[in-house]
């Protein structure tokens, strides 16, 4: 187990810079998730950590050793690939034992190592099978087994669940988290799925266009997003954004599109009349008589909750209710945002204002 330090790392392909100075500190034993839309550079960063891509500038250290010029196999890391990258012509046992074999371990050492990892992952009955005879979830487990066998300092996961169906993904999510709690190995996990990030991470790093937008625990990111990008990225359904300006007539308030009045917990200093973006999560609406009038467009019940798409001041917003209401399309309801849970962002920079 080791900590990982990424300091001002940049990466260019040809003349095109894809990472613009990324710094991340990962504590020993932490589970860190790099999340962001595709093309944000998260996979590139992971591959640089693994040694599969070279580092244009900046340093990466594992433990207290700078690994910029260390061969991948000397970095003492193990990686689980998105497509698993299992050797198709080797049995499960051979796949898992391959690294030990290359290291020159004896047959006994290999079989002990493989058996230990197979027991952790309940793969023992599958050891003699070939990858093509396994289901997606089993292949995923073999890929993890191959990583465990090496007993590395750091585990790297590159979107490991994106090839699985929705149900299996949820199950494997729990399995990976449980595995981490058991082995306590430092883990860096890349995904584009914010739910995966929220559910698994000790610490989330939100990346966008080659920079780190925000780092923090899942709930920090949910409760206090630094900017509009993070606010829109974390949470499902996504946060509603309404353009308008701060307008406090006595009490703090906000004038949304078409003059719709929205409550504000507290207006930032000297912000009267300032154009801004009003952010409110779908789950922070309530139905109240003093709410803003909205017309229901579509109602989507999911059982545990109901999603309501409605027009508020001409803009479409989504609200989620856990309690059951009788909603019909075309009906008018009064939606009231919880003033203490409103996020206010700068209209041009997207930076948080409150």
């Amino acid at each position, binding site marked *: 187990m080791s900590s990982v330090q990424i300091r001002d790392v940049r990466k260019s392909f040809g003349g095109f810079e894809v990472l613009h100075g990324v710094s991340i500190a990962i504590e020993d034993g932490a589970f860190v998730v790099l999340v962001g839309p595709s093309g944000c550079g998260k996979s590139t960063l992971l591959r640089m950590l693994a*040694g599969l891509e070279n580092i244009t500038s900046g340093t990466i250290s594992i433990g207290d050793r700078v690994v910029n010029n260390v061969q*991948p*196999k000397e970095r003492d890391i193990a990686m689980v690939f998105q*497509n698993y*990258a299992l050797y198709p*012509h080797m049995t499960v046992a051979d796949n898992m034992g391959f*690294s030990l074999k290359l290291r020159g371990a004896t047959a006994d050492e290999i079989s002990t190592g493989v058996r230990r990892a197979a027991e952790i992952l309940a793969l023992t009955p599958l050891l003699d099978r070939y990858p*093509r005879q396994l289901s997606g979830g089993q292949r995923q487990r073999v890929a993890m087994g191959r990583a465990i066998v090496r007993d590395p300092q750091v585990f790297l996961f590159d979107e490991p669940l994106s090839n699985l169906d929705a149900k299996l993904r949820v199950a494997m999510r729990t399995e990976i988290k449980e595995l981490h709690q058991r082995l306590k190995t430092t883990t860096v996990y890349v995904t584009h799925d914010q739910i995966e990030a929220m559910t698994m991470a000790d610490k989330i790093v939100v990346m966008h266009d080659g920079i780190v937008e925000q780092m923090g625990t899942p709930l920090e990111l949910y409760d206090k997003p630094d900017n509009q990008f993070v606010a829109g990225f974390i949470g499902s359904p996504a946060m509603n954004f309404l353009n308008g300006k701060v307008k406090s007539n006595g009490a703090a308030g906000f004038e949304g599109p078409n003059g719709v009045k929205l409550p504000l917990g507290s207006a930032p200093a000297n912000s009267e009349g300032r154009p801004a973006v009003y952010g409110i999560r779908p789950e922070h609406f309530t139905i109240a008589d003093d709410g803003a009038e909205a017309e229901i467009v579509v109602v989507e019940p999911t059982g545990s909750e109901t999603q309501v798409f409605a027009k508020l001041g001409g803009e479409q917003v989504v609200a989620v209710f856990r309690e059951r209401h009788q909603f019909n399309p075309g009906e008018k309801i009064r939606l009231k945002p919880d003033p203490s849970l409103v996020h206010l962002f700068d209209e041009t920079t997207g930076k948080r204002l409150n």
Partner: protein
Amino acid sequence: MADIALQPRVRPPIREATRWEQIKSNRNFIALWFMLPAMAFLLFFLAYPLGLGIWISFTDARIGRPGAFIGLENYEWLWDDSIFWLSVFNTLLYTFVASAIKFGIGLYLALLLNENMPFKAMLRALVLIPFIVPTVLSALAFWWIFDSQFSIISWSLKEMGLITENINFLGDVYWARACVIFANIWRGVPFVAITLLAGLQTVSPSLYEAATLDGATRWQMFRNITYPLLTPIIAVVMTFSVLFTFTDFQLIWAMTRGGPVNSTHLMATLSYQRAIIGGVLGEGAAISNAMIPFLLAAIMVSWFGLQRRKWQQGENND
């Protein structure tokens, strides 16, 4: 909602398909029609000549005379014919040496061309050139290169002062064999290289990345990943390569006509010489037919080499 009342659509009565319509849409019936042209082609251009060749080998046919059935007499003749046995030896030597070297060079080139390097597309195209040049044309070029008087190789070596007399490339038994084998390798390498390259490109790059992290050296990656994953393709390529080499005719005929003293006569060239030049069709056919057991053996080897491996995709066989 809609203001215009929707007129109920007039539905025609449902009709059973006629017998003819059922036959027309029958998959097997359609498949038969698709297969007919290929079947006719194979019958006329493959089965008929093969059958005729086998029949002629049992007769004493000469050019212009149909000949009478003489049973295995042609084969008995061949059994005692030292030139025939020499041609068998030559063919086997030619095939094994040329195929082995073609495989080695082809695999090396394929691995090289699979790397990322500048002008990759152009280099790949260049490798194909020997394959594109008509055989006779390249044979003629080699004929000049290996000429006893005007050989550029002899000339260069003399200029460098390494030898004093021309090398008699196509006039010496061992030199002649080496020269035709060299020419065959030059022609055959592109086929092996390009086909193996196609096979290499089906290997997922992430396997190499995984192996890199597992700590494999380049040789270990080749030995443990590339080679095993390539074996099915190697089996196909080498079967074809062996078949083409074993039945080679053009190159030999254009360069040496089987000489000197029959030392480069292959079974195909000997058959041609006896049947067409010498006019003894029956004996020529018998020589040709004598190739069949060897070719079948080569196909059997690849048949077992091509057996679906347990790890390969396909029907379940566990």
